[in-house]
Structures are given as C-alpha cells and as structure tokens.
C-alpha cells in the first residue's frame, strides 16, 4: 500500500469521484487556478476542466446556496470552504437549506452535497481562524458530520461522503494535511459513514478521540503502556451519526473513559458522548467520565498560550491516570 499524505489522499478521493460520476463537481475559493489554498485540489482543473472545477468569488453564502440548488437539480456538488471558519457565513444555506430540504419538501429533494475544508486549531492564526465548529453542525438533524484522522480514513470517508445522498459536513484538520499514512489504491476503497474505528486496542482505559486528538491520544497511549496502563483509543470518525455502540462496548470492557477533543468544553460533542456513556454504560463505570478539552477561551495568538489551549499528550496521560486511580 502506498504511503501518502492526508492532502494527497483527499485529492485522490475527489479525483476518483470526479472521474467516476460526471454529476460530481467541486467549487470554492481558489480551488481551480490556484490548486486550492491547501493544495487539496491540485491538478484537478487541468484534468477535469472549468465546468467541473470552479473558482468562486469570496461569497460563502452565495456559493453554498448555489451548491444546494445544484444538488436539488440533480448534481453532486463538493463545496470547499477555504477553512471552516468561513463556513460561518454560509450557515444559513448549510443549516436552513441543505439540512432541512429533504424534510421540508416532503422527501422530494435529496441534497447530495459535501461541504468540506479544514477546521480545528491551526498554527498562530488567532481566534477567528483557529476553532472547532463540529458541535454546531452535529447539532442539526439532516446533516452528517465527518472528521477523519488518517490518510486512509480521509480518502475512504470522503468518497463515501460524495456518494452519500444527504448533505455531509466534512471537516479536515489544518495541521494534519501533511500527516502520512498507508492508503489502499483500490478505486473502490471506501470507509462507511457512521462506523467508529478502534485505533488501538487496550484493556484499562478507553480514550475517545477524533481528528487532531487521535495521534495525540495514540502517543499518550504509547507512553502509558510503558507505565503498564493499557489504553484503547477509539476514533468515532463520524460525529453524526455517532457509532456510540463501539464506544459503549469499549467502556464496558475498560470501565473507565477519557474523552479528548480540541473544541471548547461547553456543549461540545464530548459533552454528548459523555451523556450517552452515562446512560448506556452506567453500571460499568468505575470512575466518572473525564474530558480533556480545548481551553474555554478564544484561541490565543501567542504561541505559548496557543499550546496551552490545545490538549496535549501530558494532559491526556494525567486524565487517564486519574480515572485509573493511579495518582
């Protein structure tokens, strides 16, 4: 299996789906002539031409709405946001049009659209350009929300998202585009939506992590193994629909759980997962569910403060040791 970056994996997924289905097209700021702000769409304009790879003006609400209309008309748009921070401008189209159209049209209009781009923390781009928005989108019925953490998942999940008949919010991680991993080159390789992945098996503590927190949790698990603490790392991969069963099964086995995420703690995805665990695995818990979250402040610009605002290996290790009653 070739080892490629997440950036290349996403590029492969889009290329393969553009080639597979002529209803698929991609549009966004700088996706064509400039090969994408993060070079995810590199070479696609040259290969598929300006009808399938479309540069838009800086009008997020406008081109998101254009995408919803195209989906209603039978196409399968991929809308790239240069980052998800700018999707905030387009939320009316994402939430009020894309998410609700199937319901409000009495089932007449599927919206097979993918809104994708990088989200989460980036390096020193400060409060407005460095934040996690998945809990916003996961809140709304009608949307699917996907967050890959490896190159293979990025490719397989994006292909599934493009083939899905419902609107999918596909949030990549700005810091992770260069991360490498083995990716099957089979053009039919996909990863189903709504299925969690056990990234590491263990017996003592379950760590639930997504996106950027997965490699951090895996590193923590490695160090904890040296302290004779065996961690199971679960990546839900899809936030909605959430594969809670895999998480609950793991908690039933380990009896202790740490939830790691970049986002602010209040009303976060992990607040929801924590509740689900309490409800479904109450009798299996040997310790309170522990969360490790991003700081409850706007992302600082200063590098030292920025580092403190994002969960790291040390904080996850401390949380694991706490629920395992080791300190």
């Amino acid at each position, binding site marked *: 299996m070739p080892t490629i970056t997440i950036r290349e994996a996403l590029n492969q997924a889009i290329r393969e789906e553009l080639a597979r289905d002529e209803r698929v097209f991609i549009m966004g700021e700088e996706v064509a002539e400039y090969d994408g702000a993060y070079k995810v769409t590199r070479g696609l304009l040259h290969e598929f031409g300006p009808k399938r790879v479309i540069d838009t003006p800086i009008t997020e609400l406008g081109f998101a709405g254009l995408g919803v209309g195209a989906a209603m008309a039978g196409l399968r748009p991929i809308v790239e946001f240069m980052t998800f921070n700018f999707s905030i401008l387009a939320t009316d189209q994402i939430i009020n049009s894309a998410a609700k159209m199937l319901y409000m049209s009495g089932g007449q209009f599927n919206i097979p659209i993918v809104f994708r781009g990088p989200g989460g923390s980036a390096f020193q781009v400060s409060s407005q350009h460095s934040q996690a928005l998945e809990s916003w989108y996961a809140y709304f019925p009608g949307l699917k929300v996907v967050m890959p953490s490896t190159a293979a998942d990025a490719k397989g999940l994006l292909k599934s998202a493009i083939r899905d008949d419902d609107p999918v919010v596909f949030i990549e991680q700005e810091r992770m585009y260069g991360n490498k991993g083995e990716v099957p080159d089979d053009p039919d390789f996909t990863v189903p939506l709504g299925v969690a992945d056990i990234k590491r098996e263990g017996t003592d503590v379950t760590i639930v992590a997504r996106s950027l927190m997965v490699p951090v949790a895996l590193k923590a698990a490695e160090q904890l193994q040296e302290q004779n603490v065996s961690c199971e790392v679960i990546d839900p991969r899809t936030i909605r629909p959430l594969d809670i069963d895999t998480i609950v099964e793991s908690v039933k086995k380990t*009896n202790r759980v740490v939830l790691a995420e970049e986002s602010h703690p209040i009303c976060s995805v992990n607040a929801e997962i924590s509740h689900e665990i309490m409800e479904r695995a*109450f*009798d*299996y*818990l*040997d*310790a309170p569910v522990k969360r490790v979250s991003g700081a409850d402040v706007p992302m600082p610009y200063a590098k030292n403060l920025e580092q403190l605002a994002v969960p790291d290996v040390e904080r996850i290790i401390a949380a694991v040791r706490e629920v395992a*009653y080791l300190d």
Partner: protein
Amino acid sequence: MASKVIMPKLSPTMEEGQIARWLKKEGDKVSMGEPLAEIDTDKATMEMQALANGVLRKILINEGESAPLGQLIAVIGEPNEDIASVLAEAPALASPKPAAEAAPKPAQEPPPPPPAAPPAAPTNGRQAGSTDSGRIIVSPLAARMAADSGLDLRSIQGSGPNGRIIKRDIEAAMTQPKAAAAPSFQPAAVATASAYRDEPATQIRQTIAKRLVASIGPVPHFFLTVDIEMDRAAEMRESIKALDPELKISINDIIIKCTAAALMQHQQVNASFQEKVIRYYEHADIGVAVAIEDGLITPVIRAADQKSLSQIAAEVRELAERARNKKLKPEEYTGATFSISNLGMFGIDEFTAVINPPEGAILAIGAMTPKPVVRDNQVVVKQMMRVTMSCDHRVIDGATGAKFLQTFKKILENPLYLVV
C-alpha cells in the same frame, strides 16, 4: 447552623416511634452523643442520642405522641439563631426513606467525636459531610459487582477519592474470603449470632418452594405432633434443685437445651429458606417466645448448644425480664435460627405456633400433665407433654422434621443424653 432531629430507625421493623420521654427540655444545652429522648418502638424503649451540639431549641413531638421515621421531631441550634426556616421545612421531611438509609446504626453506638468546626447539620436524616452517616461512596461498577457477588459494601474500605469503593477494592474483597474460605460457615451480621453456610437451593427444592407457597401463603407450614414422657426431665429438675437450691432450672430451660442438642444432630432443621440458597446455621440460636403486655417478643439464646443448663436458665430469666420492661436491644430479639413457644403454663394441652420467618421451624410446647399411658401392656400414669413442631416445608420435609422430633423426644425422655 440549626440541626434537625428526626425520628430515627431504632429497630429493624420500626415504622414509627412514640416519644416516651424527653430527657432534655427546650432551652437545655445538648452535646453530640448525649441522650436526648427515650423512644418507644414496636419492640422496645430505646434511647435517642443528639447528633449535634447546641441548645434544644424546639420540641415538635410531645411525650406520648408518635411520628413516622424521618419526621422532624425537634431542632437543635445556637441560642439566638433563627430556626424559622428549619421549622418551615417540617412537613417536607416526612419521607421515611432518607432516615431508613441513615438508620442501620444502632443508637447505642458511640457517636463520632465532634469536629472542631461547627458540626455538619443532619439534613434529611443524613449527616451531611459526615463520613459515617451511612452513605456509601461507590462507583456504579463496584456497586454492581458487590451486588452480583453478595459482598456487603459496608465491610469494604474504598481506595478511591473520598474513600470511593472502586473495582479494585471489590476484586480484592472477592479474593480475600476465598483464601479464608476453608471454614464453611460465614460469620453472621450480628456479632454474637450463629455463623452459617449457604448451599444453593437445588432445582427440586426451588420447585417445591414455589408450589407450596402458591398453595398456602409465603411460608408453607406443616405440623408434626409428638407425645413426650417427661418424668425423667422432671426428675432431673428436682435433682438439680436438691443439689443446689440456688440453681433455678425450669422445664422450659431443659426443653431449650434438648432442642439445641437435637438441632446439632439435625442441621437440616436448623436452617432457613433464602430464595436462592438454603442457609444452614452452625449454632442453635433459640428464640424463646415471651408474652409481654401488648404482644409477644422472642429474645434469643445464642449458641444454646454450647451453653450449660444454668447459663441458659439465667439468660432466659434475664432476657424475659428485660423483654417485659421493653428494654431489649434489637440484636437481642432478632436472628434466631429456631424458636420455641410454650403455653404449658396456661394449661394448653396442644397448639400450633406460627413460624417466625426466616426461621425454618418452631416448637409449640403444651402443658405437662399426668396421663394414663400403656407401658409393657400395663396402664400407668406418666407426666406427658404434647409438642407440635411447625415446619417451613420449603426447607424441611415431613420425614426430616419427624426424625428431628424423634431425637428431641429421645433426649428429653432421657436427659442423660445431654451429657453423653
């Protein structure tokens, strides 16, 4: 801060209590652990101790009045403190449940030493912030594991934060008894009560239990009657009296001793039905029914099989006396393994007694009277006594009960068996 005084649970079956006497009056200084009142429960008169320091500000239930468990009956506070808000809450406290949780602690136990800071006020029957309030801190998993393996959480020391009992504490507790499991009898909850061993109730035993209960109520009684010649027992009593007039042994004491001796030979009868298991007791803790003014109570002679006649006699006298004065402690009238009820002194020839659950049987002793009987083809007059045993059919079958009675009769008719 004002502390609520609530009606405590002072006996296992108590649902309400009556204030027999307030030992303090409003305005009196009280300190933690000091007797506050005497309370009549369904079984006995018990002392209630203060759980806070301060002044008895208000008595809400007067002497002779009753209150359900958990109800606010008085308020302890600082001399000039405003207690209106506490008094206003009074009706809301009527729920008996919190009191029941805090209650298993017998009132006689010395209270915890008063903390340096103002003591935490008992609220809703729980001593807030107090570690010995009876509130057990346990993880959900550990609680379930303990329930599954029949471990008593109160006997386990928690190693988690705030003394929380966690998985590893249960695992440790589960491995401990295994190592010490060689003696087959488990210590009973009451320190002086008989040890016992549980054996799984077999399928057939459980089916018998279900069918019989469906037929005649929760405890399916059946009755076995036997006539016992009491001449030798009476003789023995007279001989002992001749030996030492101070030794006051009654026929009933001899019956208790013979019962205990027979039980040791028939362990199936010294047993109780516990749904999933049949519990066999190591010793014969014999409940002796004593009539009291407004009912009856059965003080327990612990390990009667190991006690001498004079010990049994002295104990019965002492316990019966205190029973009549309603001064028995709960552990003195609960947890018998077998009971005896004697109505001989009322001239009753024969009767059937009702089993006191979960015990497996009870003996109903009739009067000892001279009767013509046939011995060696001759009609002779003998001191005869009729005994009827009520058996819980879930534990004891007809033949089992009959064999026990056979032994009992043999010993009582020839009390020398007690020493051989």
